[in-house]
């Protein structure tokens, strides 16, 4: 506790800062450099957990716990839900719409960082008062006293904001059905009128070893039929094609059985 009020921290905190700080920066860099949104979200969650540890080290015990519970527990999971909804495999395209935008953006970022860090370096922050006195009655109690006295109006406004946000999210994502859903009879009548594909779609998988849903069924000539695979898998490009593999397997099997039975091959028999 006493080390919270000093110009230098304890060696333990320094070691913790340099190790975890490096990991936090790496996590942040991975967040902006990973191509898939899921990987970005996981890297960001790691960075947030490390920030929670830093809050605890700085004497903000309540905030450290809230950071883990609210940020990594609720907000990042919300992000992951949305990533799953929108499509996990959707990676960013690397094509630039504005020429040289990426380099200019990186340059702006570096310049901004240098500006910020130089500003902090210029401000002579040498002596830290420390939280020993402020935290003497307990961190949570101190925060509660401030929230319910000095900041009580802001606290009330926050409640209104949260309710507005919840209602807003419902309004934005809720869709009222404006037309009646078609019945099965109407759907089948429409299919016959259009004359596109009357019978049910064929099932995926032909061979017993490969009856998974992501493997297209084979047409009589051995080519895969895209119709047999679910529309979602088709859109994601997750169809596995085994037609050549299966045909090769079959050929090898025939070869082996011929050798074992010492039967003449079909060409010799026809002679």
């Amino acid at each position: 506790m006493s080390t919270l009020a000093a110009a230098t921290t304890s060696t333990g905190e320094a070691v913790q800062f340099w190790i975890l700080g490096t990991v936090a920066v790496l996590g942040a860099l991975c967040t902006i450099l990973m191509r898939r949104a899921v990987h970005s979200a996981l890297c960001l969650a790691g960075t947030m957990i490390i920030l929670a540890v830093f809050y605890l080290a700085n004497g903000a015990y309540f905030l450290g716990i809230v950071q883990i519970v609210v940020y990594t527990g609720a907000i990042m999971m919300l992000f992951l839900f949305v990533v799953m909804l929108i499509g996990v495999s959707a990676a960013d395209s690397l094509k630039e719409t504005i020429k040289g935008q990426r380099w200019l953006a990186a340059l702006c970022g570096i310049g901004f960082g240098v500006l910020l860090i130089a500003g902090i370096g210029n401000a002579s922050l040498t002596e830290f008062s420390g939280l020993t006195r402020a935290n003497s009655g307990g961190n949570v109690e101190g925060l509660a006293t401030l929230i319910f006295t000095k900041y009580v109006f802001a606290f009330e406004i926050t409640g209104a904001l949260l309710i507005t946000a919840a209602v807003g999210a419902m309004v934005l994502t809720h869709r009222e059905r404006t037309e009646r859903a078609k019945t099965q009879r109407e759907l089948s009548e429409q299919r016959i009128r259009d004359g596109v594909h009357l019978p049910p779609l064929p099932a995926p998988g032909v061979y017993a070893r490969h009856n998974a849903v992501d493997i297209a069924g084979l047409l009589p000539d051995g080519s895969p039929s895209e119709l047999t695979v679910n529309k979602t898998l088709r859109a994601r490009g997750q169809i596995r094609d085994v037609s050549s593999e299966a045909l090769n397997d079959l050929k090898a099997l025939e070869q082996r059985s011929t050798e074992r039975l010492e039967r003449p091959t079909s060409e010799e028999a026809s002679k």
Partner: protein
Amino acid sequence: MNPVNYLYLAALLFSIGATGVLIRRNAIVVFMCVELMLNACNLAFVAFSRLHGNLDGQIIAFFTMVVAAAEVVVGLAIIVSLFRSRHSASVDDASLMKL
């Protein structure tokens, strides 16, 4: 180690987040970078709270978290409804008002 290093770390994380907002085009990742910037600000607030020896900085960081939670809820709802109408979460595709 001087505790001011926490401020340097916060500045670094903030500029990384800002760069991410400029570079990335997936709306969700842009949003995550905004969250990273908010978190960096929170770290700075907590460090300043220790610098001044009172808890006001922590209160501000607490309010930032609440506002960030509300912002995430509304922002993700907007992204989901955008994705429903145009089947893409890329911020480049939302250019309906462009001349």
